């Protein structure tokens, strides 16, 4: 009756590929952050389905750490978006392809 763990892995792979495609295709920095969040989330789903396979708590423990990583990534990514918008008046990631100093 329980869910086969390979279903969770397949769903994690599909979500990861969607996030990777969005990361490669989109130029808007907000969508880049969204895609990275989707990819991190897919990784967490992989850990949880693997933990459910052996009924161990380690998968959810790693998911807790992934939450901390996602929170830090969101904070830094949003600060970068605000800096880019303040500096170049756009959120196009191509506007920051040249660095100075």
């Amino acid at each position, binding site marked *: 009756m329980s869910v086969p763990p390979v279903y969770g892995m397949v769903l994690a792979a599909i979500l990861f590929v969607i996030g990777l495609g969005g990361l490669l295709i989109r130029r808007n920095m907000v969508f880049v952050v969204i895609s990275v969040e989707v990819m991190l989330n897919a990784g967490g789903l992989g850990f949880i389905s693997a933990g459910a396979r052996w009924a161990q708590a380690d998968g959810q423990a790693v998911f807790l750490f992934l939450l901390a990583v996602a*929170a830090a990534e969101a904070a830094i990514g949003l600060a970068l978006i605000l800096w880019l918008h303040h500096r170049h008046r756009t959120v196009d990631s191509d506007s920051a392809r040249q660095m100075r100093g």
Partner: protein
Amino acid sequence: MTIAFVIAGTLSIIATLLAVSRSNTVHALLYLIGSLLALAVAFYTLGAAYAAVLEIMVYAGAIVVLLLFVVMIMNLGGRRKEEERALLGPSVWVGPSAVVLGVAVELAVVFASGLTPATESSYVSAQMVNAVVFGPYVIGVELASFLLLAGVVSAVHLGRRHQKVIETGSDSPPERSSEDRDPPGTGDRGESGPAWATRLHSKEVVE
């Protein structure tokens, strides 16, 4: 329970595809919230109720709402009021509402059928998770605190006002005119030199 997982996973895939392909940022974030809720249902059916609750509270409740706040602060798009009113048509909210309604109906069916994951063999309780996190993985908790501290410091550093940097960056590109090719050192630097050299000189004096 497997059919609930399949439905939740399908909803999550559809909502994620819509989230990364929309042109409006706010709509994409609403679809992302729907995707995260569907994924929380998938976690629940996998026996990870604790992770499902954390997914809703931390991801959908904190991170995505923070993204929404930043998008609203930047006012991306900058629409007027009538355009905003035109955006409230059914074509805007039908998609996210369908996703969230699907998740809600599925949760109701799961709860009504009594298929709680407590009877499953793969159920992992919050007590087990926290006993592991604060037991063998306690060094990971310390490292996560370091990581969050670094995130806060870098966010504050990037969020400062860069007025001085922006001013010097905007007027520092020197114009390659004929006076630029004058050999340096001929005459007084503050009077006959190019304008940017004067600024550089005064900046050196100030500093």
